[in-house]
């Protein structure tokens, strides 16, 4: 184990340091400063006492913790078969299946929660079952993407050899598969945990008024009751807990395996005896993911009790197109900025020792800062003179880079670590400078992963609601915000319009994902030649 792990010695750290500096600056300005503004501006020591001695605070903490742990466990179990299928096997429709299984993650939680209300029988509304199943729906994608990407690196020949030599499936799993995917699994679990821990819309809509996470209570305190101090203290409690959890997880997971391999390995085909199982897995996953989307489509053609395309005819209504445009341009900018940030973060993480680990840690902690707190903090921090960016459309994109880039980092870091050190050494001997090697070796090898992370960031931005709804913007609301607004108004037609937009968003997300998949496929193909 140690033998393999040592294949990635620390390279020349200069570029890593520059990257770390840029990332630290970006996070310092757009993350740390807003959080500090909130803390220093609105919290007195007495507020800590007031909030921390209230028993309801600890109920919130306990509920947030156990419902996320439960959601993580169920997600891993549900996502395991499809991840195994996609990660190891080659079959027709693989890319499509991978795209489809990622869709849930991208849909705005308000929309998904509403769709689930439509699909689930009434007796399951406002139950833990509804909450957990929705969390699973969102997070299958994380497992498929993060663990699946890692599984793709598994040398099937190695498994076959082990089998031939008489190793049982359990032994193969324990000695070959698990050591390879352990890091990715823990990373995926951590990401899912954080998302569920700060779950907001799902808890509110599907959990009902009697269930509250810290995150949903923060919003209620701040805006429902108007107690900003208590809300900020709760946000800090949330931050501390999350950092603690991440620390524990890191300690448990140990260091990740480095891998040294040049070419992409061919995937195995689905064996005959596994065919039925594979079809079942693919079918079940696709149904699970697409059913709520079908419900959205169905609702979009229901105006009152009758079926009608009236709502679809209003798509070119100026306010609807304006929101589609706003979403597109915000997502595009967030994508470009977010990828830059994620690549720099990855560079710092893989090239630097302690600082790299710190940056890595920080990039996960970002996920724990609630979008609500973040949005509010940004609005309150950048409010003077040249820095008065509060109503600028691109400011929402800045918030979205923060919400989305940690995810891209999770995709990029493992991929980057697969670069064999020998390539660098050879290039160095041939006289290539550090920048040249970065561009020609690392970035080139990373191209598919970079495209994939661009897709993820764009998608997260398309679906993001919490921060976007809080930040004012001129010239068109993004689609999730528009959907929520339409949903909260009277009238069958308006409501159908909301579902039209939601369906469009789902369809656009699927299309974008399929495109990304095929772009990746092409570059894979070229690389293998």
């Amino acid at each position, binding site marked *: 184990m140690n033998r393999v792990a040592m294949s990635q010695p620390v390279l020349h750290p200069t570029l890593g340091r520059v990257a770390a500096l840029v990332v630290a600056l970006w996070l310092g300005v757009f993350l740390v400063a807003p959080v500090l503004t909130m803390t220093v501006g609105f919290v007195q020591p007495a507020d800590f006492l007031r909030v921390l001695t209230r028993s309801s605070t600890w109920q919130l903490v306990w509920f947030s913790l156990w419902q996320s742990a439960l959601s993580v466990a169920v997600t891993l179990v549900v996502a395991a078969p499809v991840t195994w299928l996609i990660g190891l096997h080659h079959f027709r429709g693989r890319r499509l299946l991978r795209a489809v299984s990622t869709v849930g993650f991208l849909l705005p939680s308000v929309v998904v929660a509403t769709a689930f209300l439509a699909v689930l029988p009434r007796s399951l509304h406002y139950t833990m079952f509804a909450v957990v199943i929705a969390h699973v729906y969102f997070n299958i994608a994380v497992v498929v993407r993060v663990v699946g990407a890692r599984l793709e690196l598994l040398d099937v020949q190695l498994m076959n050899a082990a089998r031939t030599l008489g190793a049982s499936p359990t032994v193969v799993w324990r000695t070959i598969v698990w050591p390879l995917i352990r890091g990715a699994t823990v990373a995926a679990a951590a990401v899912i945990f954080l998302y569920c821990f700060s779950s907001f819309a799902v808890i509110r809509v599907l959990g*009902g008024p*009697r269930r509250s996470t810290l995150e949903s209570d923060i919003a209620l305190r701040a805006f429902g009751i108007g107690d900003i101090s208590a809300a900020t203290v709760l946000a800090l409690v949330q931050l501390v807990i999350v950092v603690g959890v991440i620390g524990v997880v890191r300690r448990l997971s140990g260091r990740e395996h480095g891998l040294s391999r040049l070419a992409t390995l061919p995937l195995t085909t689905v064996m005959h005896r596994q065919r039925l199982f594979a079809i079942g897995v693919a079918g079940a996953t696709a149904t699970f993911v697409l059913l709520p989307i079908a419900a959205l489509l169905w609702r979009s053609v229901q105006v009152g009790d009758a079926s009608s395309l009236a709502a679809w005819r209003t798509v070119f209504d100026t306010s609807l197109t304006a929101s589609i445009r706003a979403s597109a341009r915000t997502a595009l900018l967030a994508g470009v900025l977010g990828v830059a940030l994620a690549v720099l973060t990855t560079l710092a993480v893989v090239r630097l020792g302690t600082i790299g680990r710190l940056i890595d840690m920080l990039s996960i902690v970002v996920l724990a800062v609630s979008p609500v707190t973040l949005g509010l903090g940004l609005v309150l921090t950048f409010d003077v003179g040249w820095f008065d960016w509060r109503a600028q459309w691109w400011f929402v994109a800045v918030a979205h880079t923060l919400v989305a880039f940690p995810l891209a980092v999770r995709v990029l870091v493992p991929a980057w670590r697969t670069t064999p050190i020998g390539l660098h050494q050879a290039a160095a001997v041939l006289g290539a400078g550090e920048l040249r090697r970065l561009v020609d070796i690392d970035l080139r090898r990373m191209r598919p992963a970079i495209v994939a992370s661009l897709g993820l960031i764009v998608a997260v931005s398309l679906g993001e609601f919490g921060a976007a709804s809080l930040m004012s913007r001129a010239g068109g609301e993004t689609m999730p915000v528009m959907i929520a607004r339409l949903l909260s108004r009277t009238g069958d037609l308006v409501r159908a319009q909301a579902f039209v937009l939601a369906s469009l968003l789902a369809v656009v997300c699927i299309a974008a994902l399929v495109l990304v998949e095929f772009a990746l496929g092409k570059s894979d193909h070229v690389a293998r030649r």
Partner: protein
Amino acid sequence: MKIRSLLIGLATAGTLLAACTSGSTNDVAVTTNDGPITLRLLAHESFTPTETIFDDFTLQTGIKVELVRSSDAGTLVTKAVLASGNPEGDVLWGVDNTLLSRALDADVFVPYVTVHRDDLDAVAVALAPDGAVTPVDSGDVCINYDKAWFAERNITPPLTLQALTSSTYRNLLVTPNPVSSSPGLAFLLATIAEFGDGWQQWWETMRTNNILIVESWSDAYYGHFTAASDGERPLVVSYATSPPAEVLFADPRPTQAPTAVAALTCFRQYEFAGILRGTKHEPQAQLLIDFLVSRQFQEDLPLTQFVWPINNKASVPKEFLDYALRPENPLTIGPAIIAQRRAEWLEQFSDIMLR
């Protein structure tokens, strides 16, 4: 490859630069005295006037209006309070009587007495007598019922809040959560206005009568109300203007509204607009306030936002009058008392109903 990477880098830098410069030109456009002035009007998501309506204002005054919407009224006011003195915009639309004192205490607005003051609803004007804010519309939150449901079963719909505690109406009412929903809060205030200190007892009785509390108004109306969903609850807390919306948004339009309102359960909400303290365009902002309560703008309100005009001279469209109910003696509580006790009431409500 190298060139392409460089291009990507340049594109990123370019976008950043473009973003920065576009930001600064906007700032200049607002602060310059030479070009046309643009006022920024902040509002909540439910502010949806006819899109071209501000064109007339621009035509009349040469002042442009940039509408910036975000979130709900509670969040809007919270943000305005936090940014008091250094506002995000020039004029704010949408602080209601349940939130008014919070904004007034934080000194969010500069007073202005509109030229149309004498035409406005006197009760509403009296809520902010010094003109810190100007009332702009009103509406009522009431129990709505599904007419067909009650007719089919030969049951009389409940006329009062007290009646709701009868076992006849067991399992029938759904309401949005007061902590997270503005109509939900209005309904809680209705019960406090009606029962005084006995309000907690009323809710406890309703708890045994199996009232359903859901997260949002849309969840209540479109998730559980028999007249608007496949739900099982024929009584819902909604707006007095929901029946006309049911008619006007339906295709084809029915001759009668499928729902009706229990007039004695209504709580009146007023909305206000105000000039944000710290604006650089106070005189222009005053003109905008005048425009917002002018007949032209007020007459646009009923069919775009399902609220009543505050200007008594504004005429209300017939199709709205035909189906909307205007309760004569709605329940209400003074904004100062609401501001003082709101947090306490919500905590008590949570303890009784949500824990």
